[in-house]
């Protein structure tokens, strides 16, 4: 399916994002379909910096900065005020993986359970990048970070945030990445269109300095994450109906890992690599089964 990405830009050039920043690109793409009657809530994350110091502001919607663990609930408060005022403003919580998977999880779960009328977007660069590359519960097995050094790389698998969110049975949740912009824009459209409840987007967002890779490979790396089934693209409606939106093509995992220096410990450890391969395949099969259960007649079609 082709989808035209709108040409209009809603983010200023020259932000403080690093070269090849997936978080900055994700924001730029999301704003294209978000609409102008919107407010963003930013907890502590790379975007606390990227937006610029006062009086600079890179977006053409208002931004309320807030404390690390509060994105979902501050967005809830903003939405409550807008509702009381009779306004239909879209309120977005925009958080990194730390502010979503870790410190922000309690408020996120609360908002999801209450089915708050907000759009929560996690741009996931798989570690605490703003503080200088420390592991989070989003960091995948075998990864180097400054707190999981080469001698003791990340041992645990990445937390299944989509599974956690789906368990709250919110109206809409989807994964996406800036490497597939048409898919991403369509999901933003879907999320904005479903009003009256909680919507969640999980955006894999490359971090060239933290992933130890060349900035000009940013798009390629995110694309390979999808092709190798490490980060499948799909959406979940009401926590039950799964739809795979882009079919991977069996790209070997090594082709994804080898572009990134952070996976050096993994590539040198056959046992760990096989463990990861098993986990990726197991998660894919689970997703596939859910997709097939939701779409009995159209298995394998694109």
């Amino acid at each position, binding site marked *: 399916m082709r989808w035209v990405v709108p040409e209009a830009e809603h983010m200023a050039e020259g932000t403080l994002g690093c070269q090849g920043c997936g978080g900055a690109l994700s924001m730029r793409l999301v704003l294209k379909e978000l609409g*102008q*009657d*919107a*407010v963003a*809530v*930013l907890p502590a994350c790379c975007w*606390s*910096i990227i*937006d*610029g*110091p*006062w009086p600079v*502001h890179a*977006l*053409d*919607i*208002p*931004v*309320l*900065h*807030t*404390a690390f*663990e*509060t994105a979902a*609930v*501050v*967005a*809830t*408060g*903003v*939405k*409550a*005020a*807008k*509702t*009381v*005022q009779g306004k239909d*403003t879209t309120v977005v919580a925009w958080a990194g993986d730390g502010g979503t998977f870790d410190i922000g999880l*309690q*408020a996120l*779960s*609360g908002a999801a*359970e*209450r089915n708050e009328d907000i759009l929560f977007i996690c741009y996931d660069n798989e570690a605490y990048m703003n503080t200088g590359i420390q592991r989070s519960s989003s960091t995948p097995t075998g990864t180097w970070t400054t707190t999981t050094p080469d001698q003791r790389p990340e041992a645990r698998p990445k937390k299944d945030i989509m599974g956690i969110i789906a368990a709250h049975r919110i109206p809409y949740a989807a994964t996406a990445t800036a490497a597939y912009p048409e898919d991403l824009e369509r999901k933003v459209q879907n999320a904005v269109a479903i009003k009256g409840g909680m919507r969640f987007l999980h955006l894999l967002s490359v971090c060239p300095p933290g992933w130890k890779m060349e900035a000009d490979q940013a798009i390629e790396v995110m694309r390979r994450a999808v092709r190798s089934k490490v980060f499948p693209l799909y959406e979940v409606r009401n926590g039950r109906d799964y739809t795979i939106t882009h079919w991977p093509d069996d790209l070997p995992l090594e082709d994804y890992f080898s572009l990134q220096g952070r996976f050096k410990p993994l590539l040198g450890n056959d046992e760990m690599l096989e463990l990861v391969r098993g986990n990726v395949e197991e998660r894919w099969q689970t997703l596939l089964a859910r997709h097939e259960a939701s779409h009995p007649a159209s298995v394998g079609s694109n």
Partner: protein
Amino acid sequence: MPERLLLTGNHAAAYGAMLARSEVISAYPITPQTMIVELLSELTASGRLDAKFITVESEHSAMAACVGASAAGARAYTATSGQGLALMHEMLHWAVGARLPIVLTNVSRAMAPGWSIWSDQSDILSQRDVGWMMLFAESVQEAQDFIIWMYRVAEQVFLPGMVGMDAFILSHTAEPLIVHDQEAVDEYLPPFEPLYDLDPAQPRAYGGLVNRDHYFELRYKIYENMERAGQLLIDAGEEFGDVLGHKYTPLEGFMLDDAEYVLVSAGAMTSNVRQAVRDLREKGIKAGLLRVIAFRPFPVKQIRRILGGRKKVAVLDRNMSAGHSGIFAEEVRSALHGQSDAPPIYGYVVGIGGRDVRVETAHEVMDDLLERDEPEMALFVGVKGLPIGPLRADYEIRPLEPLEVVR
């Protein structure tokens, strides 16, 4: 027409939030505050109060939701107690820095461990330096009225404010309450006009990075506005009398004119201290009472004027700062520092963890005050097995002995 009802302090607070036309209320249950949010839930569910009620998953989130709502231009209210106020701490700072006039009621209770739900000022006084205005209620009527008074000032200085009321002694005790006429409250408290409201037509960023070139000035403005709040509390308290029938002041004196010995107190225990002062006057002792209502901003100049020239001052603290003294005593001492006619300040620590502070307790304090020559930082009243006095002189640090295991 105003109504006269028999209500608890908790229900009075809920009526205060309703009369103030709070627009977004967000709260989490905690004893002994819970009745406030229960009643507010009913009032919003029935439509009697046109507000959005958010049942969040923690007190930290309760304050965060208020921050979001207030930043978007709504009048926001919450209520909490003890551990809940402590959990809010980070977001209490946020409300100040973001200049959001949120009002909260804190039903003051002791901090754990051990678990204690009983009256104690430690929770609220632990938030002394966050930059919130703080009022201490003594009656059910004040538990309601101070919310309205607080919003009136908070929305002029764009600083948040909290109203403290004592666990159970006020929160669960029914007293006659005048529920003001809504139109009169509306006249006193106009609709909230926010500094900013996250209007998409004005895409600005709030609360982001500030360089060293600017942060100091932002904090200076907070200090400046807290100073302004001192006079505004007086003005708004006066106006409360004109419009709603009862004048409020940051400090309240009782039999102070010729008093040689002044007892300083805050909160509900003041009622018993006041009775003790009456008794003492009958005995011919020139006693008086100074009740501290506004703790932040602290009425330093007025306290210097009122307490200057007295023979002795006893400050009653239902709290203590370990390593120093009771916190009210500390503040009063600091206010009087360097004043040539400053009286000696005797700090008394009473009623920790809800231990009763009776009329008799105030008498014990006065007996000790009359007898004692030198002031002490913290004189403990009612510790089992010990007379009123400072720390045990023979106290030595010993390793804890292992408990005998009973099988």
